[in-house]
């Protein structure tokens, strides 16, 4: 976020001053601090991590209900069960059919027990894949919402092959001949997140994060002190601006000044606008192009060094560009 953007936010916030909740006030203060310092501190970043985890943030089903006229949740993996922590279905958005899938957190303790706090089991990922294939069969775009601390690290999840379920999704999503658009709504936690995030375009909400490991996990492994999570969060570079600068994501969805939880409708409207924009681009392409571009995009992920010229040669050779022999 550059200075002008922050300036703009502050103005927005001030115009919202009448509704001023404690949240907005504290956010305002935080942003002003950022502006004065010229750069954010680990503590600033940490507030955004907490914002990403705020239990009042819009959930998958809420976003869907905001952006569709009609939606039918479709259940089940057809082999073992239906996972309430990873939901999906088909909806009409401005009259156009779209398949949605996403992690689903609860709003309160009771809901969260049912939703397992958005930690999905293998059957959730298998349902997601089933619905993705259903979307492909009928030529519908797929929109996914990522909001999980991770895949569930439990005995039953291991027994039923959580690794296999995520792995299969990664492979099969690469092949889908439809537009796939992904949004990190809040927490984008590791394998559990990427299991439904192999998209042609991937976006993050302004206060979301997306990371290979939770900051707490990183802090306890590398610093042997989970309370150093804020430092780890900063070191992991897991926030939208970081990932955008790495070229790992394609854009950042603005949240209302106080955070997404202060205005679900506004947040959802921004998401809807992005879906429409992305579809305008992606629907120009054939299914084969979409799959190929998605695959090529992920094949190019990673940073390393190598001897002069060899990488280019390698990919040239494999993808038939400038073929010599």
């Amino acid at each position, binding site marked *: 976020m550059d200075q002008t953007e922050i300036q703009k936010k502050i103005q927005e916030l001030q115009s919202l001053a009448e509704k001023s909740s404690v949240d907005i006030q504290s956010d305002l203060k935080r942003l002003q601090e950022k502006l004065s310092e010229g750069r954010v501190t680990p503590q600033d970043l940490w507030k955004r991590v907490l914002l990403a985890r705020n239990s009042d943030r819009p959930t998958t089903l809420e976003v869907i209900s905001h952006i569709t006229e009609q939606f039918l949740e479709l259940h089940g993996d057809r082999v073992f069960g239906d996972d309430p922590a990873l939901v999906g279905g088909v909806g009409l958005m401005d009259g156009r059919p779209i398949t949605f899938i996403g992690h689903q957190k609860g709003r309160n303790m009771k809901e969260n027990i049912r939703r397992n706090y958005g930690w999905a089991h293998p059957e959730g990922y298998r349902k997601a894949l089933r619905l993705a294939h259903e979307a492909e069969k009928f030529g519908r775009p797929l929109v996914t919402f990522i909001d999980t601390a991770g*895949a*569930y690290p439990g005995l039953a999840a*291991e027994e039923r092959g959580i690794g296999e379920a995520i*792995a299969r999704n990664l492979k099969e999503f690469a*092949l889908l001949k439809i537009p796939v658009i992904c949004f990190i709504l809040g927490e984008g936690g590791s394998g559990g997140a990427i299991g439904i995030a192999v998209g042609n375009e991937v976006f993050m909400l302004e206060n979301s994060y997306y990371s290979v490991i939770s900051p707490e996990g990183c802090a306890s492994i590398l610093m042997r002190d989970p309370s150093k999570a804020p430092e780890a969060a900063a070191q992991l570079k897991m926030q939208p601006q970081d990932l955008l600068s790495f070229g790992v994501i394609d854009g950042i969805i603005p949240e209302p000044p106080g955070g997404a939880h202060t205005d679900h409708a506004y947040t959802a409207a921004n998401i809807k606008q992005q879906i429409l924009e992305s579809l305008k681009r992606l629907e120009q392409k054939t299914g084969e192009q979409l799959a190929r571009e998605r695959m090529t995009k992920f094949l190019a*992920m990673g940073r*390393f*060094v190598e001897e002069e010229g060899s990488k280019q*040669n390698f990919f040239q050779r494999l993808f038939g560009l400038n073929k010599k022999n």
Partner: protein
Amino acid sequence: MALFSNLLGRMFSGKKPAPTQVVPLKDERTFVAQKHSCPACHTHLDEGELERNLFVCPQCSHHFRITPVERIKFLSDPGTFQEFSSEVQTTNPIGFPGYEAKLNEAKAATGLADAILNGFVQIDGRKAIFSIMTFKFMGGSMGSVAGEKLTRALLTGIEKRLPVILFTTSGGMRMQEGIFSLMQMAKTSAAIAQMELSQIPLFVVLTDPTYGGVTASFAMLGDVIIAEPGASIGFAGPRVIESTIRQKLPEGFQKSEFLLQKGFIDAIVSRAELKKTLGFLIDTHMARLKVR
């Protein structure tokens, strides 16, 4: 990395490379730490005898962890291994504090550039590609280099119509590379998707231990998945699970035999049988490709 010749460079120039001289890595086994006794059955073991037995305990069949070089020796025809993609080298993509130092330490300890080694081999005369991970290099953690090399092994298999055999061992993704390391899961899986379209066979050999993002990507995507006996294989580690469910895990949880029973691997094959099995799998999976 000077240890292994840069095959890929030579491939581009069209020259046929000579077989590479391989040098053993430092010991990856728990053997020494256990004072020359088997960690499973506590029998006293002679190192020479153990090596002749492919580092499998003659008493209880405990499979010791072995190095990539030993795998090459036990599973491929002598002198046929030719490394490739060694030009891919590790950097510090997100500027993670202390990463360089850790890398240098691991390089010094293993003589390898990173946790994975690619090469062409022959198995009783059948051509194949090996991509072998090692746990000794930062716990076999998967960063950009491991992902890239694995991807090159897979894509080279497509290009040359050769079967690819992956040997996995990993503690998970390399957190020092942040999001780039997470992306390796999608990257390697996309390469396997590409293989799927090309109908080139991928065989995975799971070895002790294989965890985290590796299990949740290429390790579970083989056309045939073999495990060494008694290997620990899972997504979440046992300690994480115990702290989640707040109870002790059952005996044998996440072992090869558990995965076989749960339907996630095709077969458990002892190290002594593995070369023959891989040859058989190549014969049964390459027949159509050879006809063409």
